[in-house]
């Protein structure tokens, strides 16, 4: 029986899942992914995590609880740095996540808390792959093959997102192969939906934000739809980069859309009590004002948010945009 590796469907999942999945499957492990976020996961997360934590961290706890009894190893990478940009790292909550899980959840399976720091050399990712592979007694040739295939999968996934697909659609597309049907239809309005991938792409916690926008006749653009190189070029707009990978991506994307003037409004999806977002949100708001008075909406999400409140705010925002475009 192959070793079963559990991957929580949250946080880094939305950015790197194809890489992990392909790699683990190619080195002949069984991958078990937690189910999409649901009420049970949210309840478990709220119960297990430290009460002052933000909602994404609580949800991650919930996902871990959902699969911890079905797997032999739980893949909880410790993200430190994935690119070199001033002193950029990840939010402290990503940095200490494996330790936090160990302290707050009982009866955990073994944690595979690989430290991901890709800035110290060009072949760091391969080194990490080798480390994991060797831990499961896989031959070097096999690891290399799995590594190459995994990188290809990740590239393909990112390519599909650049073409305008959302995370879920891109993943489905990679598995089943049907392409074009999954793209969003062009609406009369375009709106940049910015924020962390785990808020923008998780349908449960953002209450189907993108679908709702589509229903209101607006097309959503996200940070992942911008080619990575182009996104990074926006870094020069800032006197000092922020310290957090996802926050930088969000603010760079904001600059990109503000300058291109391709969108009619910006929605910033933020989690209640998110530390970095306290800075990011205000910065985005000020920049939107500065660059041509772009309409800006902050959508704050927490465990208590009801659909009604979000609907009303979205409708009001869209109505305002429509009226504005008529003038």
């Amino acid at each position, binding site marked *: 029986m192959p070793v079963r590796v559990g991957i929580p469907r949250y946080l880094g999942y939305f950015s790197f899942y194809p890489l992990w999945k392909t790699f683990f499957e190619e080195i002949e492990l069984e991958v078990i992914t937690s189910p999409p976020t649901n009420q049970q996961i949210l309840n478990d997360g709220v119960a297990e995590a430290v009460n002052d934590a933000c909602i994404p961290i609580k949800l991650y706890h919930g996902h871990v609880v959902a699969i911890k009894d079905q797997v032999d190893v739980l893949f909880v990478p410790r993200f430190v740095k994935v690119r070199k940009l001033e002193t950029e790292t990840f939010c402290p909550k990503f940095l200490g996540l494996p330790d936090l899980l160990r302290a707050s959840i009982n009866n955990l399976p073994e944690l595979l808390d690989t430290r991901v720091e890709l800035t110290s050399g060009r072949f760091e990712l391969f080194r990490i792959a080798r480390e994991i592979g060797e831990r499961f007694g896989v031959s070097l040739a096999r690891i290399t093959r799995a590594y190459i295939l995994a990188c290809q999968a990740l590239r393909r996934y990112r390519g599909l997102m650049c073409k305008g697909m959302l995370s879920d659609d891109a993943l489905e597309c990679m598995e089943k192969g049907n392409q074009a049907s999954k793209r969003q239809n062009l609406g009369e309005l375009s709106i940049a939906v910015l924020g962390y991938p785990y808020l923008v792409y998780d349908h449960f916690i953002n209450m189907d934000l993108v679908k709702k926008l589509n229903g209101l006749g607006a097309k959503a653009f996200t940070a992942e739809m911008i080619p990575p190189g182009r996104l990074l070029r926006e870094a020069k707009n800032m006197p000092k980069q922020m310290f957090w990978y996802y926050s930088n991506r969000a603010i760079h994307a904001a600059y990109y859309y503000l300058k291109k003037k391709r969108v009619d409004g910006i929605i910033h999806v933020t989690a209640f009590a998110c530390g970095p977002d*306290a*800075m990011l949100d205000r*910065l985005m708001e000020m920049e939107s004002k500065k660059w041509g008075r772009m309409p800006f909406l902050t959508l704050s999400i927490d465990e208590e948010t009801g659909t009604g409140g979000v609907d009303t705010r979205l409708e009001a925002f869209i109505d305002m945009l429509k009226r504005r475009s008529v003038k």
Partner: protein
Amino acid sequence: MKITYPHMGYSYVAFKMLINDLGYEAVVPPEPSKRTIDLGVRYAPEFACIPFKVLLGTYLETIEMGAEMAITSGGMGPCRAGYYGIMHQRILNELGHDFHIHIFEPPQVNYLDFIKKLKAIKPRGMSWRTFIQLIKKGYGKLEAIDEMEYLMYRIMPFEINKGDTANAFKKVLEILDEAQTAEEIEDARWECRKMIAKVPQDRSRVPLKIGIIGEIYVVLEPAVNFYLQKTLGEMGVYTDRSIWLTSYTQKNVLVEGKIGEKDIHEMAHPYLNELIGGHGLNSIGEIVIYAEDGYDGVIQLAPFSCIPEIMAKGIVPRVSREEGIPVMTIFIDEQTAAAGVLTRLEAFLDLLKRRREQQAIKEKSLA
């Protein structure tokens, strides 16, 4: 030019001298009050931490007093404090204030930038030698202040007449404030030591020992943490806090040679194995150290929504259980009230007292 700086504990005395020495006019920031916090809360992002709000409030207050520039520190993350300067500057600009915030980034990040910033502060015509000497002198004063504060909290639980030590410290600050040259500071230091030691004490008491850990700003600023150390001291509790502005106490007085950051991080390793910014990792390591040194309990102070301290808080229960030391976490924001904190403190002290009694009984029965 009128220059101000963040208010942090009693350090303002030293910074005042340094800025005046450099030939500028120092605008001494007022101690954070209700008004400071109100001003800060009005213009700061909702989920910014209390240090951000207090600093913004302080800048707004000093602007009213005529300050044109503030000197502050930057940071390299991932704690938000490193981005404060930039956000403050933008918010103040948006409010229409012509106010410059001079941010010193840590030299490890950008050496040249650090030198450039120093040069901008150095008055024209002053040699680098004098400039560095002045900074050293300022640091000496800062060390003296730290030492006196340290002594005050050591003696407080033994004082016979409540308030004596605090009054002595007030006088000490005045004396240190007047000392201008390096020699005067050294003399003042000797005199102050004597003054504090002269407070009548009852050395037969065996006070509870509590360690104070957490985020640097709320630990250092008594006006924000409701004078926690003073309150505890006057309740007859011996407190030791882990963070000081200068390393004087770490070099000279801290327990049994466990001094450097490295040692603290080493102690934290079984529980947390990554630098998570701010003082998150230190907090964990220091609990272990206090437990080993036989303290009765630990109080963790942190601003509400502080990311590194939330991480630490998540791990604290495990440390507390395995090291056998009670830990209480107090998160502080603009809504926190003194009465609430006091109640929690009293309950915590009761718990510690009872725990100590039980241990004594256990030891007796074993003997």
